[in-house]
């Protein structure tokens, strides 16, 4: 079943001055449970495509459909609410809240959604254990290694069981050991919770583990291969 569909989307920055075609007519369909990597050289439009799918930016033309809902026509407020309920984000720079512990960072979105305290506690501990950082639950980001911080970010993204997770260069700042174990954990969650993962990456280690590789060049899909 198709969870994400993009229909001939384009994204042009500075249309009135020096137009930059970051995404140029991409039509894609991503199925539930996929573990997909969007690859390509720097500046090819990977992050922009993820932002368009995640509703962080609007396409200049075309439409983005998530679970049958066209999100590209939603208002800012509706998009924020949509992201909260449907999408998990993992960022290259982890982007954890520095004044909160690993536990609180993981619980953040559940708290926003008003989950009951006991349910939050159970889910956070389940995720932190799955990520092998349960013993770091009460440590703040600055007390964690890069790999541990990214595991907290993954736990936060997974916390509310979103329909899919968008991960923008999640391993860019990690060493090979941390990357390996992080990917193992994400694959495990992908299999266990059937969560769809979409990465933007130029990390070979991620490409090797992804089941589908969508290659971009100059804002266009030049290859779409299943392994």
């Amino acid at each position, binding site marked *: 079943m198709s969870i994400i569909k993009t229909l001939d989307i384009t994204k042009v920055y500075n249309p009135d001055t020096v137009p930059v075609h970051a995404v140029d007519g991409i039509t894609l369909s991503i199925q539930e449970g996929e573990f997909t990597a969007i690859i390509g050289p720097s500046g090819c439009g990977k*992050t922009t495509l993820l*932002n368009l799918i*995640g509703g*962080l*930016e609007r396409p200049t033309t075309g439409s983005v459909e998530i679970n049958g809902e066209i999100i590209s026509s939603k208002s*800012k*407020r509706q998009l*924020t*609410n949509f*992201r*909260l*309920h449907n999408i998990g*984000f993992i*960022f290259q*720079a982890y*982007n954890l*809240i*520095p*004044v*909160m512990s690993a536990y609180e960072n993981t619980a*953040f*979105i559940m*708290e*926003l959604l008003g989950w009951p305290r006991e349910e939050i506690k159970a889910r956070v501990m389940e995720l932190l254990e799955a990520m092998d950082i349960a013993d770091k639950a009460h440590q703040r980001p600055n007390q964690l290694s890069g790999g541990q911080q990214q595991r907290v970010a993954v736990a*936060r993204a997974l916390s509310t069981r979103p329909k899919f997770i968008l991960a923008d260069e999640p391993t860019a700042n990690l060493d090979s050991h941390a990357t390996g174990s992080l990917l193992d954990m994400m694959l495990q969650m992908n299999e266990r919770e059937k969560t769809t993962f979409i990465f933007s990456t130029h990390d070979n280690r991620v490409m090797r583990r992804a089941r589908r590789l969508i290659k971009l060049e100059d804002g266009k899909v030049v290859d779409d291969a299943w392994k």
Partner: protein
Amino acid sequence: MIIGYAWRNVWRNSTRSLAVILALATGLLGALFIAALANGMVDKWIKSAIDNELSDLQLHPQQYLITEDLSSTMDQGLIEAALQADSNIASYSFRVKVDAMAATANNSLQVIGLGVNPAQESEVTEIHNLIEEGSYFKDQSNFKSIIISRKMANKLKAGLGSKIILTLADAQGDIAYENFKVTGIFSTTNTMFDESTLFVDKDQLTKILRLPSDQIHQSAARVYQPEMLATSVTSLNQQLEGVKAESWKELNPALRVTKSTMDLYNYILVGVVLLALIFGIVNTMLMAILERTKEIGMLSALGLSRPKIAQMIVAETVFLCLVGACIGNLFSFLAISYFGNRGIHFERFTEGFESYGLSAEVFPSIDSEMYITITLMVMVTAVFASIFPIIRAFKLDPAQAIRD
């Protein structure tokens, strides 16, 4: 959660937050202390006016208030009965009053002569406690006693034991005069009162004025419960025909107006301080938002709605200001309590203060509700100060913020 998050955000850059907190605390301390000083001055002014001149209420014949005709008097017995019937009246005294010329061998002065019953008068005014030299009608010699102030004594070039001749028009309009001996010299903090008022025995002055012994011009009274003063005044006015009872607020409207104006002035003073501080608070919050551009963008990407972002910024600003307000209030309370007990003596300005009827020794004081009102004012200021940072945060594009 947002509230807890906001609280922690306040302490992210503790140096910067402490600078704002201390600025706010210092501003409030300054404003509150000045307000307390002004309040203390006015309170002392009112207290000394009540204690030394006005008492809580006074009764006069209505006609006397219009014409100041000495023959317009009221019956002492009727007044006494009405005052005794009011359970709020703690003490009272009866007076006869006359405009006179006081003269010594060296000088003369136009004065107001009050004929008082010393025992009764001691219950309604504090003049007997303000005697600096001599005594308050305790002289046993055959001379008629007169009590004057130090300032009047200086003007008349008189001292203890000096003779003073009072010349006046009696109730029939005839000129009369009498010799008195200065047996007591007092001093209040009100120059005008001191330079114009002297005290003699009521029975003696009644005789000089050729008034019946049971007739008076004025009665002063003190009450047990000042908050019930208006009720007593109304009740006395209803009972006594041809007599006007007035509280100190009516007897000296300037005192009442000054008191209420001072309250307003105090709030304006604090308001101006807060207005000046609001720019510093806005600047601090803007810096805090700019430093966290990426984080706020990330929060927005994760689904933190605009109202929640606004709630977070308002809470941060309110916390920042509230801590400042609490510290400012605490130090103000300590300073006002300390100096409120010890008093501050503006020795160099004594003459100037007293020429306005004010004491140069000020006991700063402030109503406890002022602290609550000011805390609320600070919170309102914080909400206003957060508007600009909120607008700034709303303008952030999450994708751009994360990319940056």
